[in-house]
């Protein structure tokens, strides 16, 4: 009960803050007051009130679908709120800049909110210096050189060496710094960092956080949206918890601890799912998928031998370039590799008897599903001839044929890391859910709308997809719910092996737990799952076993059950990676 009273205290604090909004605006704060926004049937913001003061870092936490991205878009002027107020107070910075009148400032507000994205929104085909100049060319005739202020900014951001480098040739961290420099050159007062470091190394992240602090120290408003609670605790002065489109609570001072945030997140999420259950699978003798001497065609990995057991969740980990990602893709059939591969044919879910057969093949292993389906029964001569011609043509084209055109391996479902590559943005939530089931639902060639909708509704319910209706466009959902749709669509095909690349990248804690639970449920009937992951917490929470890949070889194996906590597990992983 003590928790409950603490909660109400915090809510009261949040409410009190809203009342003082007008006073705060005068001091240069960013004020959101009762902001509402709907997308179709989905309520994104439901009366959000929030203050962000100059000189502080305001952290924003919240589960997927709580309205974080919508808030960011409204602040940036990309989206207009349905109702409510958004005010940018006249700050010291604005007063100092010559002749900034009230109306002019309002018009300028959108430009002065700088959003630093995970993926920088710049001009990848232009150089760093050109990126600073775009939109402020000042001359219609000649491209000017960067002026003193801009070159100072480049030095400040550590970019002076790469001023004339094409942006796309630079690492992500440098691109983000370019984005910050560009915003500073435009005299932005409000900086919103939206999951800025999810693709950065630890060192790069530290550097980014240092820059955030110096922006705040210079009197700018800094807002940090993140799923990583420890970073919020470490760097933010206050953290606002967004749940269901409202500011549920604000944490600061002593209350601002990782535990408090995590509890609020889990308790406050629409579906309270309880603590992560720790049910590891029994170790199985039989492998659902086994490879031997497995070698990537372009040498990203070579001579790999591994197996995925029945009922096992196996994680592959390794730095970018280690070959781990390519290994996972090749097992799904989306990257060309050769060697021995053995796959258990689908057995009855419960009878462990001799019903299971084994498909064994060696050598070239990039056959597509069409080929394998035809192998039942003896094909007529003309088919054999046709196939020979086709194989010859395929061989000739193999070098140019990128893996995208492949159909993947039968019995394996794959979900890639980039959500944009997994979703059909022109289709509805329901259509996305059943996109992989069209063969099954429409045997006659016709898709019965009722059956489709029923199936989609069932899947949405089973996978706790939070959507107004399955008929809504998929883009109306929040990122985490889109990810659930993607995973649901893959699991719905009942594959023998499910291969996921970074399944919870950019997903909040409750959704992560849900996804882990669904994975565990999925393998409980004897299927196997393989994850390519880069986060120690994920490895520790969900995997039974982890293979560490370094320099194209399996450097070692961790049995996750042997480790007491994340630190021990992470240390062991790091040691293997370095060896």
């Amino acid at each position, binding site marked *: 009960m003590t928790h409950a009273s603490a909660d109400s205290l915090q809510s009261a604090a949040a409410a009190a803050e809203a009342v003082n909004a007008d006073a705060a605006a005068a001091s240069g704060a960013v004020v959101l007051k009762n902001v509402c926004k709907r997308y179709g*049937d989905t309520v994104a913001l439901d009366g959000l009130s929030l203050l962000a003061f100059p000189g502080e870092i305001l952290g924003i936490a919240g589960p997927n679908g709580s309205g974080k991205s919508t808030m960011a878009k409204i602040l940036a002027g990309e989206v207009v709120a349905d109702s409510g107020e958004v005010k940018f107070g006249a700050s010291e910075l604005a007063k100092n800049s010559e002749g900034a009148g009230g109306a002019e400032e309002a018009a300028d507000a959108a430009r002065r909110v700088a959003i630093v994205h995970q993926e920088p929104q710049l001009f990848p085909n232009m150089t760093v210096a050109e990126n600073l100049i775009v939109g402020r060319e000042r001359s219609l005739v000649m491209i000017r050189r960067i002026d003193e202020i801009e070159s100072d900014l480049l030095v400040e951001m550590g970019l002076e060496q790469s001023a004339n480098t094409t942006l796309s040739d630079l690492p992500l961290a440098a691109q983000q710094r370019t984005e910050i420099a560009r915003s500073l050159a435009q005299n932005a007062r409000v900086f919103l960092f939206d999951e800025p470091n999810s693709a950065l190394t630890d060192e790069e992240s530290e550097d980014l956080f240092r820059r955030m602090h110096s922006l705040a120290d210079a009197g700018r408003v800094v807002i940090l949206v993140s799923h990583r609670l420890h970073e919020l605790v470490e760097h933010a002065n206050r953290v606002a918890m967004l749940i*269901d489109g409202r500011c549920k609570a604000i944490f600061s001072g002593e209350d601002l601890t990782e535990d408090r945030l995590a509890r609020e997140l889990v308790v406050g999420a629409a579906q309270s799912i309880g603590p992560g259950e720790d049910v590891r699978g029994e170790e199985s003798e039989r492998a659902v998928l086994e490879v031997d001497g497995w070698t990537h065609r372009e040498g990203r990995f070579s001579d790999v031998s591994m197996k995925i057991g029945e009922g096992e969740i196996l994680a592959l980990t390794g730095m970018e370039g280690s070959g781990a990602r390519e290994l996972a893709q090749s097992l799904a059939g*989306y990257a060309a590799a050769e060697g021995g591969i053995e796959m258990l044919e689908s057995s009855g879910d419960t009878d462990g008897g001799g019903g299971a057969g084994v498909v064994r093949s060696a050598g070239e292993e990039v056959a597509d599903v069409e080929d394998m389906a035809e192998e039942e029964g003896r094909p007529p001569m003309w088919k054999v001839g046709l196939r020979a011609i086709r194989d010859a043509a395929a061989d000739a*084209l193999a070098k140019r044929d990128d893996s995208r*055109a492949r159909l993947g391996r039968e019995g394996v479902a794959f979900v890639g890391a980039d959500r944009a590559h997994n979703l059909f*943005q022109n289709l509805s939530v329901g259509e996305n859910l059943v996109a*992989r089931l069209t063969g099954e639902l429409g045997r006659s060639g016709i898709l019965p709308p009722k059956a489709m909708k029923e199936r989609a509704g069932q899947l949405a319910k089973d996978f706790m997809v939070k959507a*107004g*209706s399955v008929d809504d466009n998929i883009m109306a959902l929040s990122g985490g719910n889109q990810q659930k749709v993607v995973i649901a*669509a893959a699991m719905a095909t009942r594959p023998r092996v499910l291969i996921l690349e970074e399944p919870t990248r950019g997903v909040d804690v409750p959704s992560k737990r849900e996804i882990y639970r669904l994975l565990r449920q999925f393998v409980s009937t004897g299927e196997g799952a393989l994850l390519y992951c880069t986060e120690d917490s994920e490895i520790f929470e969900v995997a039974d076993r982890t293979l560490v890949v370094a320099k194209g070889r399996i450097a070692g194996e961790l049995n996750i059950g042997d480790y007491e906590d994340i630190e021990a597990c992470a240390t062991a992983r790091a040691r293997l990676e370095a060896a």
Partner: protein
Amino acid sequence: MTAEDMTAENTFTTTLGRVVRKLGLLRLGGLVGAILILGFIFAVWSDWLFLKGANLLVLLRYMSTLGMAALGLTVILVVGEIDLSFANLATFTSMFTAVSWIIWGWPVWLSLIVSLAISAGWGLFNAFFVAIVKVPSFIATLGSSTLILGFTLFVSNSKTYSPRETNVDSGELAFFRGLSNQDLPGALEMQVIWLIGFSVIFGIFMSRGVFGFRLRAIGGNEQAATLAKLPVRRYKALAFVIGALMASVSGLLDFAFIGSVQPNPGQSLLFPVFAAVIIGGASLTGGRGTVFGTLMGALLLAVISNGLALMATGPFVRQMFLGTVTIGAVVLDQLSRRRGR
């Protein structure tokens, strides 16, 4: 608030809204409205000549020619590709039929079958470059369009052919002309019946079929379709073959009706067919397009062409009108989608 609560709360408003959005009724409503208004203007302007039965039949016949090729092109656009070669291909198939029948003395059915087979092969030829060699379809079909035009000129010796004026078998001539000319009740043209038949088949498979669903999925996001194990290459090939066949059928039926074929009229089909499909709501970036929309697009263009021809305004007015209407349609589409969000 759970998903169920939200659904219950807004059932009425959203169901209606959803239906409107889903069918794009607003947009189609605008299209139908435009057709009616233009029709009315032409009717008044032409002293009601426009609404005479004979004229409406001419209008419908032109709509059929456009519509059949447009149905095929819709399939190609929905899967996310483009085809610039269909118009020249349609000329080639007609020309090949004429030459093989009249000059080489083949039986007409053989000429027709071989022509259509060549046409399907041409679709595969396009698909090979697009889906396997991965040349952008704009470039691939721009090239193949010019190539097939070359074949047309080669086969025809740049001459016009009219089977009637030659000594082909009269039974065969009757059969061939019968494809487009039949004594139908109400003096309805056979071509219109063909269009209705194809529209029903396309309508079923595009809106209710696995075929249409997968086309939209592939056109919407090819990468996701690959991961979902949809047969991307096969569907692309199929789309190009269907597009080629429909254009050829449209061309052959026109040939059968008119009774002669010139080596280079195909170009005049290219723009109106594209315009019909785009006006009908298909997207050049793939994933969007419906049979009904395309038919309405074809009808609108037929109304404009026919009305202006009736008024004897001269060809330049017709071209200006076509251009304006096409741009207008795309602008309206953009506006309606922005509001939809």
